[in-house]
């Protein structure tokens, strides 16, 4: 017996109103590999504590765009970046920004669940803190247990794993692994969460759980959700940006983008004429 996901309130369309501060501001961003441009002169605002979905056909630059937001893109040999991305009005590509420290403020969840295979569930949650040496000395066991419980609770996984925290991370189901990865990202206490097609390797039930989770997470975090699933964008986001050939075609409150798109290409895409 699997309980049907609880009915969700429709996403608010007040996301773009002037009162919501902008958390991430993409300004004239260019990105690519070698001489091949992938993202072109892209400008986009992500309001604080809202979910921005990025949709578009395969190869339109969705993934490259989000990987520019936490400076993961530049790790690929031959990657190029231009323009700027402002996090709280400060350019993350400025010379004085350490990408390693930046990535602790902007967490990321990947397409394929990638828990660390050599670590237990508990160690996976703590991985970010251990890797960076944040747990060395100082903190006491109960405090660490508290971090584990809080992160797993926020990722809606605590009840399923609380009795087997010592089990291998790889022993969980695909959907649980992905929530474990979300817990792992949350344990570092980021401000922004980037999710790059987090449900594409999951079945519909696991997908619904992640979408529910996104709804809860948006109360605390700013979320950028890349998806090739338009229904998912419609269900889970406040704002939707449509990308085509590396250019931003349209960015609007989700409901408006899906009901009254202002650009012909957006309409063609969401009605399934291509893509």
């Amino acid at each position, binding site marked *: 017996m699997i309980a049907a996901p609880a009915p969700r309130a429709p996403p608010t369309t007040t996301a773009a109103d002037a009162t919501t501060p902008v958390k991430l501001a993409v300004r004239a961003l260019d990105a690519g590999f070698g001489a091949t441009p992938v993202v072109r002169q892209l400008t986009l605002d992500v309001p604080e504590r809202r979910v921005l979905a990025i949709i578009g056909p395969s190869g339109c630059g969705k993934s490259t765009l989000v990987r520019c937001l936490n400076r*993961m893109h530049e790790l690929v040999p031959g990657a190029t970046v231009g323009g700027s991305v402002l996090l709280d009005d400060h350019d993350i590509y400025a010379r004085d920004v350490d990408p*390693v420290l930046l990535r*602790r403020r902007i*967490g*990321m969840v990947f397409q394929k669940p*990638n828990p*660390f295979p*050599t670590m237990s569930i508990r160690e996976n949650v703590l991985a970010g803190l251990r*890797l960076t040496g944040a747990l060395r000395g100082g903190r006491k066991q109960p405090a660490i247990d508290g971090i584990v419980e809080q992160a797993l609770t926020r990722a809606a996984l605590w009840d399923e794993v609380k009795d087997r925290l010592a089990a291998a991370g790889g022993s969980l189901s695909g959907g649980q692994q992905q929530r474990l990865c979300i817990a792992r*990202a949350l344990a570092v206490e980021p401000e922004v969460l980037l999710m790059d097609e987090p449900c594409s390797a999951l079945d519909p039930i696991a997908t619904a759980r992640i979408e529910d989770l996104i709804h809860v997470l948006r109360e605390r975090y700013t979320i950028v959700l890349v998806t090739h699933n338009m229904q998912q964008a419609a269900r889970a986001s406040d704002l939707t940006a449509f990308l085509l050939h590396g250019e931003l075609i349209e960015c609007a409150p989700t409901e408006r983008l899906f009901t009254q798109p202002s650009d012909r290409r957006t309409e063609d895409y969401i009605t399934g004429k291509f893509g």
Partner: protein
Amino acid sequence: MSARRDLWFTLLCAAALALPLGVLVFLFGDVLLLGLERLSPAFLTSYPSRHAEHAGVLPGLVGTALLGVMTAGLALPFGVGAAIYLEEYGGNRRIARAIEVNVANLAGVPSVVYGILGLAVFVKTLGLGRSLIAGAATLALLVLPIVIVSTREALRAVPMGLREAGLALGATRWQTIRRVVLPAAAPGILTGAILAISRALGETAPLIVIGAVAYITYLPDGPRAAFTALPIQIFSWVSRPQAAFAHNAAAGIVVMLLLLLLLNAAAVLVRDRFSRGGSR
């Protein structure tokens, strides 16, 4: 018609397997029969002697064990370090690729050439003499390419997604390598290392070139001591004219083979144990 052809091919392949296997079994049986009369606890704990029936492999066994440990101590840090550099840091640069080609070629250089190199560099230039440490350094050089290649393969088998996960959590490259990549690659690295060491321990030519002594009646008392090793001992017995020493050589070969079998079994065990534990 095609089923028949399949049968023929199956038989042909089976023959291709059975023939060399048969030769091996025959050879091993022959050696075992020849050496059986010498195989006893005393054979393992005795020093070489003019009298074949009193001679034993103790110095060779100890020398081989020490060589194994010291070779591993020298080859692993350098080999694994080089592999991490090439695989995780130097990826696409031109120098890294030039090194890569050279490492692959080095793995194919005959072992006697390493012996000559060891003689010139470690024994003469560095003045280490015909010592255990010179032997271990030479063998380490010999297996370094093998360690590098097998470590790189183990590192390459670690999914890219794990590295990205580590970096996205705000870890540096080194923190990610140490806590995520190396633990995941450890079984592969260890297996390769054990196989490389077992290859080193079977080598005779480079040790002869750098001057391992065949007849030695004491155990090495330090890294600068003169030494012998099992293959050297076997080689020296084989070249004796007296028939009695042929039994010693055969018994020595059995000991050597058992040692190598043990090491290889350890490699298999390490691989199995870890691959069952972690899921990929």
